């Protein structure tokens, strides 16, 4: 199958969506970040000039405008840019978009997509490396999508734009350049379906976003030591594919959750609690959490490296749970 970059896959999904549905619009077109890949958006800017708007630096307003436009029956795709900036637009995100459907007893739909780039990107420091997805999961009412491969990002983005719910679509800055098999044609990946990126019998490693790639690297290393790791990517946090997670841990009896959000009240903690609660009897070792320690992201490279969920840290955690008796 043909290989294209993660960024190119995003552009394909956006292009198909804009062409297919005249009510789809883009608020903010630096969807691919500020790197060289941003030129991939130029053809779209040309082809759909009347539906692509580059807003001022007014995060609160664009989040709110996206919600309003969606309530008014269109399907805006709003680019918040670096995920750390979502805090500037936090109120309309959680007080308007997330609650409108429930508050109106289902009368109002909010089919908006909020796009952001999260994660440790190399020198992003404390205000450009944020990963707010766990906090957004804690606020009920938002669908949360974290594609980890070019194939997934295309299919999930198509689903996100078709979804009648407010969807937070989170890419990792480091994923943009990775290449992978992507079908030429149009396809969607339904929400709530986790994907086993690599099967294994000894330990389940749940990872999200860019850390899925890290976990696959770790699995290679561990395979050489005779440890067969199953790498599971939930792909969407809301809705969450709890069944597949519990099935996998039911087989392996051991779990490591690897993720880039901060440890406290983070994704690793929640998934660990869910499995401990519903899969207690199948656990043969404590669940290990490999996450970003509770420290603001430091700029300097050795320090940034020190808080990154690396393949080495995942390997150590896996070896610990395997050794547990």
């Amino acid at each position, binding site marked *: 199958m043909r290989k294209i970059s993660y960024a190119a896959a995003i552009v394909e999904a956006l292009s198909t969506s804009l062409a297919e549905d005249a009510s789809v619009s883009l608020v903010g077109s630096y969807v691919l970040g500020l790197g060289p890949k941003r030129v991939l958006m130029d053809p779209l800017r040309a082809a759909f000039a009347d539906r692509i708007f580059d807003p001022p630096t007014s995060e609160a307003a664009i989040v709110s405008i996206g919600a309003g436009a969606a309530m008014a029956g269109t399907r805006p795709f709003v680019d918040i840019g670096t995920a750390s900036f979502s805090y500037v637009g936090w109120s309309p995100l959680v007080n308007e978009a997330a609650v409108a459907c*429930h508050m109106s007893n289902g009368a109002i739909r909010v089919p908006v997509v909020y796009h952001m780039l999260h994660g440790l990107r190399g020198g992003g420091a404390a205000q450009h490396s944020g990963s707010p997805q766990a906090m957004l999961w*804690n606020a009920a009412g938002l669908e949360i999508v974290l594609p980890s491969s070019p194939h997934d990002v295309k299919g999930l983005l198509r689903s996100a734009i078709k979804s009648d719910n407010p969807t937070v679509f989170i890419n990792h800055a480091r994923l943009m350049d990775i290449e992978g098999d992507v079908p030429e044609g149009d396809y969607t990946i339904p929400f709530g379906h986790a994907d086993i990126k690599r099967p294994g019998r000894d330990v389940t490693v749940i990872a999200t976003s860019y850390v899925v790639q890290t976990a696959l690297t770790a699995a290679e290393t561990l395979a050489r030591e005779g440890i067969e790791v199953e790498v599971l990517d939930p792909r969407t946090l809301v809705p969450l594919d709890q069944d597949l997670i519990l099935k996998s841990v039911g087989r392996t009896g051991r779990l490591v959750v690897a993720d880039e959000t*901060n440890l406290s009240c983070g994704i690793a903690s929640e998934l660990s609690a869910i499995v401990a609660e519903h899969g207690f009897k199948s656990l043969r070792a404590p*669940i290990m959490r490999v996450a970003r320690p509770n*420290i603001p992201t430091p700029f300097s490279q050795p320090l940034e490296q020190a808080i990154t969920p690396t393949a080495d840290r995942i390997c150590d955690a896996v070896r610990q749970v395997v050794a547990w008796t």
Partner: protein
Amino acid sequence: MPSPRTATYRAAVLEALFGEMQRDESVIVMGEDIGAAGGVFKQTEGLFAQFGAERVIDTPISEAGAFGIAVGAAMTGQRPVFEVMFGDFITLVMDQLVNQAAKISYMSAGQFHVPLVLRTAVGIGGNLGPQHSQSLHAWAVHIPGLKVVMPSTPADAKGLMAAAIRDDGPVIFFEDRMLYNMRDAVPEGDYVVPIGSADIKRTGRDLTLIATGRMAHVALAAAELLAKDDISAEVIDPRSLVPLDLDTLVASVKRTSRAIVADGGYRQYGVTGEIAAIVTEHAFDWLDAPVLRVGAADVPIPFSKSLEPLVLPDARRLAREAAALVRGFR
């Protein structure tokens, strides 16, 4: 023996504010309607009359800007107690809280400190609906650099507010609206409860109920019910979520081998998940049963009288789950 002096939760916090403002010129109070109006919950009543407009500052409805100003003032010698009227409105100060206040001491390598207290009223009750009832403290816990306290009794509220104001870093102080009128013993005069110390509100041997804020009272009521069934529950209130007194929690769970975590925030991705995970991690070999979690239903808090009470479990439901946990995993 004379019965101890009592006060309401609201009055206890106010006592701490009066005390600290008298003690320290640099303590100022900022917020909406907190001046002459005395606060929408009357939680700042009398401060304006005593300390005047220079130290008790009414802000416009400009949460982000006003909070940012408090952060700047804290960096330059003031100790602001900044009030966000409803906990739901911390959404409006999120950027200044997460991207500035929490990180400035770290980013400046200690050149600057941000000695401010963000106090806000949270909790479900009184039919205020989806934008005036949430307990969003899990967000603050998720952000490195913030201390998070959540007192459940008038005495703790007074002592922790004093400690929060004297702390040199940003402290988020969550008060449950529905506790404001609760009356209980409160020490007079200068009284400080150190941040980071859990409190065993009731001792027991069969299971540990780890409960925050208002849920500590639900847990105590549940413990009463359980006692009737000869189940002895220990109730621990962490009192502060950052720093978390892990030793006290784990020691208790190692004794009882069972735990339920109860918190007023949304259940998914919240405080209950964090505490359950960390307790399971540290007491795995002592656990006879999964650590259960009890929190707010993951829905926007509905207004209607018939729906609102369903969002948070009551003592009966908590006791039922506790009994099942003890019996089911003998």
